[in-house]
């Protein structure tokens, strides 16, 4: 019951009028920052961090948590409306969110995303409250072999359950992995794949550049072609009735959302993994378990709910290693960690014992921030949907500008803008040939982690590959990966064998 006492103290702080105002301000700002392609929670938190010196640390952390959550909600908005994932965590949301918007169900998709985010956030905060201290040990059990096995599992989930052409998915993963090696080698520091001696390639290719290029510019080119220059308007409306209908639909998805939340929380908690593989695996799992599995990728509401619960749950989960081990699981938590150092707090195993006020103040502010975020988000859905009613000829110009500005802003290098245009054209051509974009983008995000953990394991085990299988945790992940990988292969082999026998028989 000590727990409840701490939590009550925390709420006493986070529910004061000034802090409530801060929460509302934070989530609204976060929502818009997250909705802009190119800007994410990292930018939001970075911009606001210096402001936090004006207010006491407890209010400051509430502001940061509010922005963090607001941006997580906002990420889904550009995925659904524009088809451009604003952050790698929102890539899986495009799979079904975008088709829903194209079918005129943008409002429903946004309601689904907001509700799912809320459920994911709430379940994960409850898990956090109950198990924060013991779970820190789980994070410690994760060494390089486990990290590698987890990323492998994320990729094979994709191959096995993605539904796209398996061979094309694998080709795109390989292309993404190749792109992820551009720049300086993590382990030896040697430059690799520096094309045309351009210095810009030394820092590698960022996720944003590739995502904005392939999803943003590529999508615009593709839509221009398919709409044949006739100014199309995406039908979009939102009424109170639709809101009620949306909630009713979401009510049926309890199973999907609970799975997504728990999975998201645990994957997010693992150091270095974070919300991207979590969202992906939740999508795969939802597709596997849903009766409606064939509809995934064509605008299934579960396909929006699953990744959105998982990525919000993971963003809570990633706070855990930051607080208990001082290891930030994502760039945003790294900034939060910086904030904590500023306020004179030492993250580590003793933080929960020595600074209970801060820790429980943070946890309680996660509850309030989450609630505020869902309310603000739902209230603003009509505004977002309204944007879609612009004729495509107008919208496409605006999106193109957003893409180029969003790509330039973080690094302020023209190099990245050229890359975006290059990836846009490349992405457009690949899309015409029916190659999926998501595996490419995700391989770029997860590639460096995969390579690093693979090499670290081989170095420390003197080149013994069996190390991946011998350890119980990583062995389990590898086994699951093999199953997922073989699933579609077996299916297509069977199909191939069948068609071959029918085709071969007449010849013989």
């Amino acid at each position: 019951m000590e727990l409840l006492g701490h939590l009550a103290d925390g709420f006493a702080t986070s529910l004061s009028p000034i802090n409530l105002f801060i929460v509302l301000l934070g989530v609204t700002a976060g929502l818009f920052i997250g909705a802009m392609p190119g800007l994410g929670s990292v930018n939001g938190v970075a911009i606001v961090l210096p402001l936090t010196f004006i207010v006491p640390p407890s209010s400051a952390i509430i502001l940061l948590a509010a922005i963090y959550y607001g941006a997580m909600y906002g990420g889904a908005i550009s995925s659904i409306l524009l088809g451009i994932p604003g952050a790698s965590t929102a890539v899986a949301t495009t799979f079904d969110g975008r088709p829903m918007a194209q079918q005129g169900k943008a409002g429903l998709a946004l309601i689904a995303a907001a509700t799912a985010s809320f459920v994911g956030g709430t379940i994960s905060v409850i898990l956090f409250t109950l198990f924060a201290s013991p779970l820190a040990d789980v994070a410690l059990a994760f060494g390089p072999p486990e990290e590698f096995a987890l990323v492998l599992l994320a990729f094979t989930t994709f191959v096995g359950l993605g539904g796209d052409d398996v061979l094309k998915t694998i080709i795109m993963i390989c292309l993404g992995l190749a792109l992820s090696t551009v720049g300086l080698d993590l382990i030896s520091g040697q430059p690799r794949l520096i094309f045309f001696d351009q210095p810009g390639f030394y820092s590698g290719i960022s996720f944003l550049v590739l995502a904005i290029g392939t999803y943003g510019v590529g999508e615009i080119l593709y839509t221009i072609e398919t709409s044949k220059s006739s100014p199309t308007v995406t039908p979009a409306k939102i009424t109170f009735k639709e809101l009620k209908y949306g909630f009713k639909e979401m009510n049926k998805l309890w199973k999907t959302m609970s799975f997504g939340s728990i999975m998201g929380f645990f994957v997010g908690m693992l150091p270095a993994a974070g919300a991207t593989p979590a969202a992906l695996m939740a999508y795969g799992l939802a597709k596997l378990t849903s009766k409606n599995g064939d509809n995934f990728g064509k605008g299934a509401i579960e396909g929006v709910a699953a990744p959105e619960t998982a990525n919000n749950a993971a963003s809570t989960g990633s706070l855990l290693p930051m607080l208990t081990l001082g290891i930030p699981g994502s760039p945003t938590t790294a900034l939060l960690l910086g904030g904590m150092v500023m306020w004179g707090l030492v993250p580590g195993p003793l933080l929960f014992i020595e600074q209970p006020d801060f820790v429980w103040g943070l946890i309680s502010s996660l509850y309030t921030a989450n609630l505020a975020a869902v309310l603000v988000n739902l209230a603003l859905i009509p505004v977002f949907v309204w944007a879609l009613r612009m004729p495509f000829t107008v919208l496409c110009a605006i999106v193109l500008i957003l893409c180029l500005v969003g790509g330039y802003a973080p690094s302020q290098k023209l190099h990245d803008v050229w890359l975006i245009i290059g990836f846009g054209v490349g992405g457009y051509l690949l899309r015409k040939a029916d190659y999926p974009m998501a595996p490419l983008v995700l391989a770029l995000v997860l590639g460096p982690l995969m390579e690093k953990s693979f090499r670290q394991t081989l170095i420390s085990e003197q080149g013994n590959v069996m190390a991946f299988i011998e350890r119980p945790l990583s062995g389990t992940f590898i086994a699951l990966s093999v199953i997922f990988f073989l699933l579609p292969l077996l299916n297509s082999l069977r199909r191939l064998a069948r068609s071959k026998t029918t085709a071969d028989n007449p010849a013989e």
Partner: protein
Amino acid sequence: MTYKITRRIAIAAAATVGLLTAAPVTAQDWTPERPVEMVIMAGTGGGADRLARLFQSIIQKENLSTMPILPVNKGGGSGAEALRYLADNEGENHLIMATLNSYYTTPLRTDIGVNIEEFTPIARMALDTFVLWVNADSDIETLDDYVAAVQASGGSWKMGGTGTGQEDSLVTAMLENEFGISVTYVPFSGGGDVARNLVGGHIDSSVNNPSEALGFYQAGELRPIAAFTPERISAFPDTPTMGELGHDLVYWMQRSFVAPKDMAPEAVAYYTAMFENLSQSEEWQTYTAEKALMADFLTGEELQAYFLEERAKHADLLESMGEGS
């Protein structure tokens, strides 16, 4: 409170005096027009990262800069990413970089087209220390135990550290040479990651900076074996130095700030004054005492001379390891 205010006035006064004497260019000629980027040559959670973020916080709290300082991690390739970034931003006045010893070693080991002689030195804030750590669950209590355990492992002893050719690997090489032992060196992207993997039992020992392992040490998860310092570190009074144990092993990590080539002299003066004020702040002085850092402020030409001297030393060190290029 009054103390704090008087101290602020004192600092402001000191700063003004400093500025007046720093003629002909005074920092007042130039102030940043937009937020200043503070590039960190290492990943998040490590010693360099924590320190850079601490600097940022003190600057912000004490109002030492008119514009916010934004830390950005560019830890890839043992800091090569950050060095390259600095080289590509010649003449930029809104960019400073927090360095560590990979400032010399990375360009020595890899041809990344960077010559540190061209960069503008700003200020050296401190020299950081190294300690040999093992997991508190292990039986190793003394340096002798440690050496015996490594020998018994027959080369499969896992020593974790930052990138190959970076500080941790140099200290490891010094250990190997001194004791005639051989370990398997496993590189990680940051000191925080190393500490976590040591606590989790994925590696057998580390040479983390004290600040990186302190949280775990206080929680009783890690055990210090010996310090690579001339004198005992005040935060670990019971940990002997390598020198006490009869081994002449001392290694420091410099914590400095540099700027791109051709930064405007007015801007250089501005940042130098900023760090000078920082080095006198109460927070910094408490921190250095608590975290076993040696505050040793140095600027301008003297700092550049120090950098070049250290670069030469590290070139020899790398050569002896067979690592030089």
